[in-house]
């Protein structure tokens, strides 16, 4: 009897122990001279960090820098899970966060992010970039790339239809669509690609008019937003013109213009390395300023799309080393920026980088056009807007509204419905952030 009991206890014990053993495999490798960095986009951000790590290795050879490539969505999900549960194991010391999202993090987890005021000053960067990461006068991140938007286009196709490079200057959407129709008619090539789930184009149009889905105080501004209405009207014109190739993800998007199925790419200047990766199209491309909406007097030929900054998570372990890394590289190093101009066509938002020599060089792929000078000039014109903290949430609802309007629904009615829905969702956020 006793032996039987013993066996039972042993078995039960083993079950529990083996379960407990499963949970104890994480190793806490937090040596003081190693920092981890998360970023996305192999052809752009990752190259930049690796270069920065090389530069930093000369300044401080004792520090080991580990760069991890992750999809942006995965970074977002991981940060959300870990920060909300307060579990810092496995989080990076430095993380790249897109400008649209950073306010959401800074309001929800302000105490998890390092203040950068002691290593950099907001005055050193383009104004519209620091608008998103300064809270109560304290700067929480180092702005990185400019998201200044431009139209990358196939000059050869435009010229084939009888238009000239000059027609693409001071561009309006109407003119752009007109040229697009001519290209489609003559060559069969679509003007651009659109993803129905992603209305980045509308976002760019909005900022070109100094507007956003939210007003300066972060309240939803949809129902009576003239710029938004103009943007949706323009978007509808684009679709109705039949010059749009629909894509459903990043790979198809890049594939379309690399394989010559789209004649232009109106987006952030960070797309440049992807455009230039099609060697066979060298010399055929040119860059024009972003189109403005002629019917909207506030709309100018400059806007921004994407762009991001570096943030230090202070509870992960190596706050000081991580800050020192940023201080020596992205926060001040003009020489590094100069190298990155060549390597990834970086348009830095560090004001001092404007003097870097590579900025005044022409790029052969774009027929020798001095694109960086243009980018820098447009960057200065971009109107800063408050992205608020719910851009992607609002945008998901907006994509539905836009699709309904494209299918013939009444714009005013649809937008006012959308306003109600957004208010219900964002209301509590507005109260919190004050």
């Amino acid at each position: 009897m006793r032996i039987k009991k013993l066996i039972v206890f042993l078995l039960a014990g083993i079950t529990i122990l083996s379960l407990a053993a499963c949970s104890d495999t994480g190793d806490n490798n937090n040596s003081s001279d190693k920092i981890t960095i998360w970023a996305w986009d192999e052809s752009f951000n990752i190259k930049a960090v690796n270069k920065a790590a090389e530069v930093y290795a000369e300044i401080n050879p004792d520090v080991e820098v580990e760069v991890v490539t992750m999809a942006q969505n995965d970074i977002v999900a991981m940060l959300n899970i870990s920060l909300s549960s307060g579990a810092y194991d496995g989080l990076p010391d430095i993380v790249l966060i897109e400008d649209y999202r950073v306010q959401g993090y800074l309001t929800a987890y302000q105490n998890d992010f390092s203040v950068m005021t002691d290593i950099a000053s907001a005055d050193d960067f383009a104004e519209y970039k620091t608008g998103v990461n300064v809270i109560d006068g304290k700067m929480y991140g180092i702005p990185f790339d400019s998201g200044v938007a431009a139209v990358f286009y196939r000059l050869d196709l435009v010229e084939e239809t009888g238009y000239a490079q000059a027609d693409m200057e001071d561009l309006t959407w109407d003119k752009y669509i007109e040229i697009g129709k001519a290209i489609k008619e003559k060559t069969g090539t679509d003007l651009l690609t659109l993803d129905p789930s992603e209305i980045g184009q509308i976002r760019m149009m909005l900022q070109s008019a100094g507007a956003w889905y939210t007003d300066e105080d972060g309240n939803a501004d949809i129902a009576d937003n003239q710029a938004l209405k103009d943007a949706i009207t323009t978007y509808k014109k684009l679709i109705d013109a039949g010059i749009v190739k629909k894509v459903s993800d990043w790979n198809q998007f890049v594939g379309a213009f690399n394989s010559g199925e789209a004649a232009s790419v109106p987006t952030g200047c960070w797309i440049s390395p992807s455009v230039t990766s099609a060697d066979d199209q060298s010399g055929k491309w040119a860059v024009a300023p972003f189109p403005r909406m002629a019917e909207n007097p506030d709309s100018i030929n400059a806007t921004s799309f994407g762009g991001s900054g570096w943030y230090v998570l202070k509870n992960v372990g190596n706050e000081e080393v991580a800050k020192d890394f940023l201080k020596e590289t992205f926060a001040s190093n003009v020489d590094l920026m100069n190298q990155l101009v060549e390597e990834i066509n970086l348009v830095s938002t560090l004001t001092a980088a404007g003097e870097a020599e590579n900025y005044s060089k022409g790029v052969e792929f774009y027929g020798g056009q001095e694109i960086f000078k243009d980018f820098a000039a447009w960057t200065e014109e971009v109107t800063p807007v408050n992205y608020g903290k719910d851009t992607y949430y609002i945008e998901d609802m907006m994509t539905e509204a836009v699709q309904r309007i494209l299918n013939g629904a009444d714009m005013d009615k649809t937008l006012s419905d959308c306003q109600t829905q957004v208010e219900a969702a964002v209301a509590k956020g507005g109260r919190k952030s004050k």
Partner: protein
Amino acid sequence: MNKKKVMESFNRQAWIFIIPSMLLIISFVFYPMIQAFITSFQTGTGTNLSVNGIDNYKRLLTDTTFRKALFNTLLYLFVQVPIMIILALVISSMLNNKKLKFKGFYRTAIFLPCVTSLVAYSIIFKSLFAADGFVNAILMKVHLISEPISWITDPVWAKILIIVAITWRWVGYNMVFYLSGLQSVDDAVYEAADIDGASAFRKFKSITLPMLRPIIIFTTINSTIGTLQLFDESKNITGGGPANATITISHYIYNLLFKYSPDFGYAAAVSYVIVIMIVVLSFIQMKAGDKND
């Protein structure tokens, strides 16, 4: 007396065996469920939560994205589950045919999709059904269509694509249940029907279906729960798009937590809608199934 003692010690031993799994279920299933229910009455971003009563549930009523997700999920449920169950029944009774050759091969071929990873097959479907993908190429080659179908970027085709994908993935799974159920049906019943001159359809309707009824109920409940929790296909094939046209409730919960600024309270409220739906639907199905007993 002695017997009672033995029983007691048996009981004690049984409890010792059960306790670990009970503790695990309580701490990893029931505790989170209760906690989620409490969270659903709170609001705030991240960990700064405060109680706001039933505001989250009120917000559900004005949330058109939620309504869309609910509609899509129910659409998948009411269109896809019957198609799948009928297909599985037909295939299983065909495979149960004694004269059929290469039975093992067909069974394996039809069951194989179920052992593939959800994410892997979703991504393969996505590339097969891309605008310039394999499926469009084939359809154009055989002149069924003159222009490529935009499977992923058109709201209607995207829904069809999701339904096709889930059906492909799960028919084999249900078929296996029916096949094993059919093994227990006595051949004599079919032989008797043959002697009476019953047609194949009549045999299916009057013998196979009634005999398999408990299994059909089981698979229907299982499929219903599975469909209500549908996530991988929506996330990976269409990304919920175009413009949330294919988003499911589970995918919406994921978005609320991990895509936007995390809103635990509201996400918990939405997840309780699924809980309630599963309970109600399962209850109805069980009642409907029991009726004739």
